[in-house]
């Protein structure tokens, strides 16, 4: 029964939140509940979604990565520089850059046993500095290798090509988490870190992989950011780390590790985007919009509580407090 009331419910929160927000905005904001708007939201969600999926890997091994925004900015900028030098495909070099940053985080957390928040705080500062260094004080680097606007804004079968690419990456994340041995190891490490060594795993390597994936996804988000803006933006990304954490947690990822679902995280990111777009369309004051986003994050937490309570009622057992049935 705990199965149902705990694991299941947490992944339903984000879809339920999307539903609630859609009804609310649909009633109050003209033009919200239209196909066009749905597609527009679907075209915008991907940067946050990639960051949140990366963040999910760090959370799954009981970690945290507050450097994702800065890493995305640095890797996007370096990607653009590479593209300008070697041609458009070199934009993808952003991914190995993100991977490298993730490797540093992973080494610090996994091998040197830094607390995740300290390790990634240190890398945030250093990465921001590096981004300024490579651009000579933070100037945007226009992407001259080619026009990427079509990839970012024209829709093909409902999504922009970059959206399809991001979706493919998220599908890969799903494969990693659900179907690859590596994903199973993340869940094992998050579930019982001491036991991993006892069954023959190498905890620090697994932890390192999680941060590497997180970094690589930040690099992907950086690629997307650069392609959408047609420029490398070295100072971009402020506040994205907190948004990505919010999206991942709303998407049911357990902060205590061991539980995650990529699609739910995608839904969490979509929910954040729905709220932002809804507020944009509704024309409320930008200050109220900020208050509303805060309220909505807390509401999603309440929704989680409510759903769990409901499911445990339905399964007609008492709330468990101890360790036995």
């Amino acid at each position, binding site marked *: 029964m705990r199965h149902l009331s705990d*694991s299941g419910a947490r992944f339903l929160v984000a879809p339920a939140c999307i539903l609630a927000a859609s009804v609310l905005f649909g009633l109050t904001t003209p033009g919200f509940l239209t196909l066009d708007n749905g597609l527009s939201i679907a075209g915008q969600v991907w940067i946050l979604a990639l960051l949140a999926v990366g963040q999910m890997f760090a959370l799954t091994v009981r970690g945290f990565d507050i450097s994702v925004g800065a890493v995305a900015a640095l890797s996007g900028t370096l990607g653009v520089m590479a593209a300008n030098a070697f041609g458009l495909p070199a934009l993808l070099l952003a991914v190995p850059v993100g991977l490298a940053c993730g490797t540093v985080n992973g080494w610090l957390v996994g091998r040197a046993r830094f607390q995740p928040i300290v390790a990634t705080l240190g890398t945030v500062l250093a990465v921001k500095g590096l981004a300024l260094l490579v651009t000579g004080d933070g100037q945007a680097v226009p992407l001259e290798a080619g026009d990427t606007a079509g990839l970012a804004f024209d829709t093909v079968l409902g999504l922009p090509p970059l959206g399809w690419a991001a979706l493919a990456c998220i599908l890969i994340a799903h494969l990693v988490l659900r179907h690859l041995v590596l994903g*199973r190891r993340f869940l094992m490490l998050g579930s*019982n870190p001491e036991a991993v060594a006892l*069954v023959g795993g190498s905890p620090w390597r697994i932890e390192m992989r999680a941060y590497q994936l997180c970094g690589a996804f930040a690099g992907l988000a950086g690629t997307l950011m650069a392609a959408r803006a047609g420029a490398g933006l070295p100072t971009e990304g402020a506040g994205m780390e907190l948004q990505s954490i919010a999206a991942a947690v709303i998407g049911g990822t357990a902060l205590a590790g*061991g539980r995650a679902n990529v699609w739910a995280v995608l839904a969490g990111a979509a929910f954040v985007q729905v709220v932002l777009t809804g507020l944009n369309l509704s024309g409320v004051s930008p200050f109220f919009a900020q208050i509303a986003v805060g309220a909505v994050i807390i509401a999603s937490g309440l929704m989680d509580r409510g759903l769990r309570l409901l499911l445990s009622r339905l399964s*007609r057992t008492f709330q468990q407090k*101890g360790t*036995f*049935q």
Partner: protein
Amino acid sequence: MSVSDEALVATGIAKSYGATCALRDARLALRRGRVHALLGENGAGKSTLVKILVGAVTPDAGRLDLDGAPAAFGSVTQAIRAGIVPIHQHLSLFPELSVHENLSAFALAGGSGLWAGRRLVDPSRARGWLAEVGLDVDLAAPLGTLSLGERQLVEVARALSLDCRVLVLDEPTAALNAGEAERLFAVVRRLCANGAAALFISHRFDEIEALADDVTVLRDGRTVIDAAPIGRYSREELTHAMLGAGVEAGPERLSARAEPVLVGRGFAAHLDAGGGTNVTVHAGEIVGMAGLIGSGALALAAWLAGAQAGAGELSVAGQGFTPGDRRRAAGFGIAYVPPDRHIEGLFGPLSARRNVSISALGRLARLGWLSASEEMQRIDPLLRRLKLHPSRPEAEARAFSGGNQQKLLIARCLALPGLKAMVLLEPTRGVDVAARSVIHDAIREAAAAGIAVLVATSDLDELMVLAHRYLVVRDHRLAAELPQDAPRAALLSALSGSIAA
């Protein structure tokens, strides 16, 4: 014994953790087809030796020989490949993963390869292992939905997945009751009959006598009795070897009956379970509550202590309180020892003294201000009485051995101001003979002082030496009440539900 018989021999093993020396000069020789018992008090170094044998820890000195050839295991994976299969003291399972994944944990954690699906063991074989240890659970169920005992059996079943030459069991029975343990023993015996060697660690002499062929005793990280046939030494001699001293037997059980103190009426585990269970514990009385795993004995006991919600009415010394309201229950003087000290009991990073004084903070604080000296005066004598070892009340609780950690929980009970009743769940799980006798004495003394005591345990021996009266729980309700002098056989048949002899 012939040398060719020897499967795994460890000699001169030493291992230190910083300042603590876990092993100094340990020797252990396991023989094919035989079960070898390893004895030692809490903290003697048994688990450390096990971790070295299975490649989870590298020793500072010493050598290992596997089938006569020197062996060195850099990792658990290497040891497993060599056929050394561990079952660890603290569950090395993953609550968020399914039973099936847990059974495949070795394959998932070690080695290379991409697809998780390929590494999951064949479901029909997995079900076979589960059946062998007598478990009937859904392979897809998350492990977290299983009870502690069921989880322990999953860990045993998982060991069967490996090609086993040496089976290493570190206190596998701590969470099992007699019936479950017997199934485990059958598995071990069968493996040994096929030529495997087994190492078995337990603090219970009954089990050791029932299962083991040879015995090695460890004291302070040294081997003091080396691979003796089990019959050669008496229990007293073994105890003496373990502790360097004997254990005095506790005082006789008193027969006491006075006014009811702790009363619970109409307990029901499920909203739709009809009827209800009534329990009364009187002043000065030790009630023993027994039940097989999954019988609900622990849940019922926890409910009585206010630690578990559920239907029914509770009262202590005439004052009623809501089930599940642990705070009110503690305020009325009901002390509680939870069954799993690591998860529910201990404050690992806090000092031993603070682990105990938490129940007495109301008494120790004046206007929200704690007096350190008064805390010391109140708590330290309790710790001395319970023979806390090492006697350092300011050391972190997690640095103590299991037996001593358990003493902290007992001391916490005794420190509760206005103590009227104690509800103890598995009070000596995984605790060595010396600590166990100290804890039993403390329980008897409390009862003699007029406290109502309820002990719920799957350890029948413990009940037989403590209880004035037995309550047997089956299917989440009270199945039988037996008097103090009820024979063991009667208890056993009441537990399993067969007609009492």
